[in-house]
């Protein structure tokens, strides 16, 4: 699944008015300062990352706010390192899947499954591997953390790129072939530009998603191994353990600032720039804007400094991949035979993989465990469905109300997207404090945490849907005095439905992932737990019980895939077929 961009009206709204304040020449200074500052932080941070592992124990996480900027820089650096890996992964794997039928057969289902595997699952199994890769060096743990963040980012980006490649406009493809573009030129002139808008949007969603797992990936506890990497995530984990509310607050503020900074300085400019890659032949009515993009465009000095580089880059000989011309198989029988052979190999490998998991799990676990885990999965499933329903009942009317009022929509939309990007799990401990104080039942009252961070997807998609209701429909409805329930039934609900499904699907996937951190929460050395698949996996992880973790993750993947196939996909298809305006 890829994320569909609900609209583009919200880009750069927050500080739109600030655009005129920057004189062209000041723009250069600002940018240079920013770049220099970033460079200093990066070098500092990189030096920290290369320290020997013992350094972690010598200098444990300190809850002194002075350290926060450094921690924030380290965390952001990890996220962008993971993002770079994700982009590389996207270009290689998605291109392979789009170009080769045989690769497609393996890659597409694999991506589908990988994105339903909870992120923590990857972490548990890879941390030891990465630590072994750089023995005694912090780099190993860093690599494990970056890999965990990568797993929260890569899949939907790859999917988005793959889908773009599969839906290239036929006439542009023919023009590119007719004028004889090389594969390299084709990538830069056709494929990448066409895929850019969707890819940028999915990248932003990925960044939001990966914040959620910062805590988990920076404070890694697997069995007896506990490592805390300096960063906001580790800070939060320490703060939660000590029950230091002020420290949590500081971290929340810092995260907010970091998110606003990279949103304004990086993503909004990219969205504004990427608008020209939309394949429609008409100019957009309301092009996304970004004050920082305008600053960049107005710079005088920097382009001159950069230009020699781009010219030099343009002169570089394109990597001439050796044109491997496989002997063309003209005999359809042989070609089909090869296809079947490949399919057999793939199925064989898959069976072998499944067998390996079964062997691994059954060494210590029995059928009874599996039944128990499925039961817990059903519990978590019930939580997810009920929460989505509750969130829908709350947010759909509000979202429609906002969406119909453009002035409100313009204000609320960026805020909703900010909340979606904000890692709600940092607020969990505070909620837990309340639960403990009131002696409430954690089985019920821990559940809302799962949707705390993901409900916003429902809100901002519904807003976008309501804002997109065509004016003539609204006018016709009011002319015939269509009101109250009839209005909801005939105008509002059908119009927002496709958008709502996108939002609910995202929220549902996010909630499954969140269950692992939401069903067990630590606050002041106290563990509060709700029975469910999430807490099962979390407990097994901290106990270092790998077979249980594997079983839990497999079951969760199965649940997510089944839910997608039986509920969300059919609804999606229905929306596309019947309610498309």
């Amino acid at each position, binding site marked *: 699944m890829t994320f569909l961009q609900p609209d583009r009206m919200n880009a750069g709204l927050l500080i739109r008015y600030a655009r005129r304040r920057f004189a062209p020449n000041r723009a250069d200074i600002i940018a240079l300062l920013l770049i220099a500052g970033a460079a200093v932080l990066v070098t500092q941070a990189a030096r920290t990352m290369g320290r020997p592992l013992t350094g972690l124990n010598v200098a444990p996480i300190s809850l002194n706010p002075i350290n926060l900027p450094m921690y924030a820089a380290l965390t952001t650096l990890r996220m962008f390192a993971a993002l770079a890996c994700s982009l590389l992964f996207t270009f290689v794997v998605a291109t392979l899947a789009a170009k080769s039928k045989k690769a497609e057969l393996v890659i597409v289902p694999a991506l589908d499954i990988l994105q339903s595997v909870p992120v923590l699952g990857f972490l548990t199994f890879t941390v030891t591997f990465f630590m072994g890769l750089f023995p005694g060096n912090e780099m190993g743990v860093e690599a494990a953390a970056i890999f965990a963040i990568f797993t929260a980012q890569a899949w939907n980006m790859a999917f988005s790129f793959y889908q773009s490649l599969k839906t290239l406009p036929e006439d542009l493809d*023919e*023009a590119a072939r007719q*004028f004889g573009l090389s594969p390299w030129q084709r990538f830069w002139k056709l494929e990448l530009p066409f895929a850019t808008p969707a890819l940028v949007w999915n990248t932003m969603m990925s960044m939001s998603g990966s914040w959620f797992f910062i805590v988990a990936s920076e404070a890694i506890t697997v069995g007896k191994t506990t490592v805390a990497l300096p960063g906001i995530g580790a800070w939060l984990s320490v703060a939660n353990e000590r029950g230091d509310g002020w420290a949590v607050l500081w971290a929340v503020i810092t995260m907010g600032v970091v998110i606003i900074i990279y949103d304004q300085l990086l993503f909004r400019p990219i969205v504004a720039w990427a608008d020209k890659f939309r394949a*429609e*032949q008409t100019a957009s009515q309301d092009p996304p804007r970004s004050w920082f993009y305008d600053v960049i465009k107005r710079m005088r000095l920097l382009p001159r400094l950069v230009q020699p580089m781009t010219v030099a880059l343009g002169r570089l000989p394109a990597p001439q991949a050796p044109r491997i011309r496989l002997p063309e198989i003209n005999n*359809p029988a042989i070609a089909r035979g090869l296809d079947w052979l490949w399919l057999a190999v793939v199925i064989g490998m898959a069976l072998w993989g499944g067998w390996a998991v079964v062997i691994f799990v059954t060494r210590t676990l029995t059928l009874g465990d599996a039944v128990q885990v499925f039961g817990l999965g059903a519990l978590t499933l019930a939580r997810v469905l009920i929460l989505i329903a509750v969130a829908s009942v709350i947010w759909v009317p509000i979202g429609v109300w906002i969406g119909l009022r453009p002035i409100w929509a313009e204000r609320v939309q960026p805020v909703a997207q900010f909340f979606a990007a904000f890692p709600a799990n940092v607020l969990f401990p505070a909620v837990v404090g309340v639960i403990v104080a009131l002696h409430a039942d954690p089985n019920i009252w821990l559940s809302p945490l799962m949707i705390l961070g993901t409900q916003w997807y429902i809100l901002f998609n519904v807003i976008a849907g309501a804002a997109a209701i065509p004016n003539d429909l609204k006018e016709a409805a009011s002319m015939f005095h269509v009101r109250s329930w009839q209005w909801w039934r005939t105008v509002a609900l059908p119009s927002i439905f496709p958008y709502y499904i996108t939002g609910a699907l995202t929220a549902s996937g996010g909630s499954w992932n969140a269950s692992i951190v939401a069903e067990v929460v630590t606050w002041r050395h106290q563990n509060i737990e709700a029975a469910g698949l999430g807490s099962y996996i979390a407990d097994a992880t901290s106990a270092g019980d790998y077979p249980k973790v594997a079983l839990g993750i497999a079951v969760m993947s199965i649940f997510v895939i089944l839910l997608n196939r039986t509920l969300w996909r059919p609804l999606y298809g229905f929306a596309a077929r019947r309610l498309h305006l």
Partner: protein
Amino acid sequence: MSTTFAPTADANLVEVRNVKHVYGKGGGGAGLLVLEDVDLTLRPNEIVGLLGRSGSGKSTLLRAISGLIRPTSGTVLVQDMPGDDTAHGVAMVFQSFALFPWLTVLQNVELGLEARGVPADERRTRALAAIDLIGLDGFENAYPKELSGGMRQRVGLARALVVQPSILLMDEPFSALDVLTAETLRTDLLDLWVEGRMPIRSILMVTHNIEEAVLMCDRILVFSSNPGRVIAEIKVDLPQPRKRLDPAFRALVDDIYARMTARTAAQPVRDGAFPGLGLGMALPIISTNTLAGMIEALAAAPNDGKAELPVLASELMLEADELLPIAETLQLMRFAEIEGRMIRLTPVGRRYAVAEVDARKQLFAQQLLAYVPLAAHIRRVLDDRASRQAPARRFRDELEDFMSEDYAEETLDAVITWGRYAEVFAFHEDADRFSLEDPG
């Protein structure tokens, strides 16, 4: 006055021999034969038009010559080189313009040169010259989405000309433009051609517009559809500039109309207008409003029940390839008969023209069940079943024994539209089922 048949020492630019092309899977019945036994020769210094209705494979032939596809069998030689090896001799102009929205006009024009590794300075000079030639000065830095359709197609032309092809291929280059813009562009292109200011030796263009073909071409190849074959080769000897109102021009247009419908007259089997027989007949989606409108237009003065197709086409402002499927659908249901270029209402057609809404529906139902085998078949199945319901999937599967998936879908959609209007059955899109229930 014709330069076409002057014996020249120059070799032929394009030679197409015995080309056959099948879309979809070869071998089994699923493949769709789009080109059969096609020969074509393009000589230096001529504009040749490929004229035919949709589904006549003319665009496919153009793509085979441009090297975009390789025909299933037969040979394509471009300047004595195999067709799929000719990126350098030909350049193509696309119906949809096919401009890269993220590149400026200048960058779009430079595309082909960049692909050939022409150095940046030379690229710029040559692109600017082409932009100048085609009348785009001042738009160099515009993005395609800022341009009107006519200007976009000029970019498409400049992009093709700048690589200095011997042969310019044009795939319905003016059909996405409004009438006035298309006419301006045609005239400009002809001026450049006549004055010899374009670096090309010949033009091969695909069109479904008969007047456009007569206006521009030295030679016209008329294609039949399903499968595409060359059914006539017509030399146009009229001097340029040609006038649409010139009687000789009109006579030629009429003549081509007659040839495009000729197959219908030659075949006494009336169902033969559409490919396939019985259940396997592939039907076009034509709205019942369009059918009724055509019957009314035929019945009204001055036609009084019969008309010449070209006259009717200009009266209704339809292109030949839009008019003919409508006429042939009327013929299939025996509302009208086609003979040569005449179309004549049958008695049933005359009755339909004067009837009220309900009587019209009854007449339509009667003709539909009598002459469209698929409609009759669906109705029979529904009548036989106790539930009075049947899944559409079943009929789709039956159709796919005869034709490709797309054609099956289109044919079923056509019958659904007609059946709903005639109230001979109902169809529920959600459930994908036919039923006999009568909504009253």
